[in-house]
């Protein structure tokens, strides 16, 4: 396996790699900059996409589409408005969720899916456990009641909708919406 050295979650934010500067080079049409970004982030991005899409072929498609979009839209990235890393992960999550939800596949496309290559479903708590012990997000998530914390994690990490969450927890849709809304507001207070 040629897994590169992304051992801990914290390593994903490699201090040495300047995403914003790399995006500026991409905006100038520099393909080697895109390749450097790919080397630095593709493994992690594929990991994020696999948690949402489960099937390797779909997750790879999300990463493919994201790098194409990142290169084409790099000029739209404004470092004054946010970090380069959040910008590329926002593109990735958006692509992955669109593939998951909006773009229901035809049988033709399913023909291209290799069988048996689904990512193993990881419990939502696994993501929590991998959060840095000292991080505030972990501490604040742990203050939520367990089912609400799980719902937040399933929504963000695995891309479940309000409706899917309501079904999984056996509560009415409106109840789930208010669980999520209140949990997010208490997270915000805790993180502030």
């Amino acid at each position, binding site marked *: 396996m040629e897994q590169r050295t992304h051992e801990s979650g914290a390593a994903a934010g490699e201090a040495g790699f300047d995403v914003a500067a790399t995006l500026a080079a991409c905006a100038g049409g520099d393909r080697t900059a895109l390749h450097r970004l790919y080397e630095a982030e593709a493994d992690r991005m594929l990991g994020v996409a696999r948690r949402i899409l489960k099937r390797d072929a779909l997750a790879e498609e999300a990463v493919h589409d994201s790098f194409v979009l990142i290169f084409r839209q790099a000029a739209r990235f404004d470092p004054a408005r946010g970090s380069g890393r959040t910008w590329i992960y926002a593109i990735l999550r958006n692509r992955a969720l669109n593939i998951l939800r909006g773009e229901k596949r035809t049988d033709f496309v399913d023909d291209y899916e290799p069988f048996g290559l689904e990512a193993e479903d990881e419990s939502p708590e696994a993501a929590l456990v991998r959060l840095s012990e000292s991080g505030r997000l972990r501490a604040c998530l742990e203050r939520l009641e367990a089912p609400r914390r799980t719902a937040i994690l399933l929504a963000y*990490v695995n891309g479940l909708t309000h409706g899917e969450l309501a079904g999984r927890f056996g509560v009415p849709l409106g109840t789930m919406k208010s669980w999520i809304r209140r949990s997010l507001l208490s997270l915000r207070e805790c993180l502030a």
Partner: protein
Amino acid sequence: MSPDPHAPNRFEGLAAEHVMGLLEGEEARRAERLEQEDPGFAAAVERWRLRFGELDATAPAHAPPPDLLARISATLDAAEPEAPPQPESAPARAARPAPLAALWRSLGFWRATGLAGAAASLLLVIGIAFGPLGRLPQPQMVAVLIGPQGEPAALVNAFADGTADLIPLRTIAVPEGRVLEVWTLWDPARGPVSIGLSNEARRIRLDLKNLPRTAPNQLFEITLEPQGGSPIGRPTGPILMKGTTSVAL
């Protein structure tokens, strides 16, 4: 500032749910618009992305297949402005950012194609069985390949002796430096296999000798590829037509 100063929580909640991907319909469009137009909302969105970004960092890293970067480069190459003009047969695709992926995903396209294709297949199969073509060796399997407008564009005949041929049903404008490449998907685990190359739409014999006998519902398709065929052994260019085999009665 907030468009609804009396409900800062509502504003903050909208930003958070936007980042989580939980919004749908009108609310989703509103959040996207606010993110572009309202610096206060955009800043709230960025804060939530930074907070939840810690969760993205917990995703187990997974090495992509070795050809993924080449696929990304091929997609970007295919859309370079100096690329050869798109064939007339694919006007809808020419304007799309990711032609291959976009066409695969176009549900409307495939719905229309399915209906038109079903009718066309029936007529063609009747034509083959009872028309002048019926005097040729009888194919065991027939696939009608359907183009982007839902029109029948080519026929694949697979014969009892394991040979197969492709008969175009309309002309295809092939740009300079490009070729038509024919693919089949016999085994989803193996992926599409190249079975023929041609510079123009003409009758060609397909190379199926390394594949098991053609089966019902086997996918055939034609893509536009660089001279010499796809450099990476799987389709990279726009799909010009595709279809699946049926048993010839």
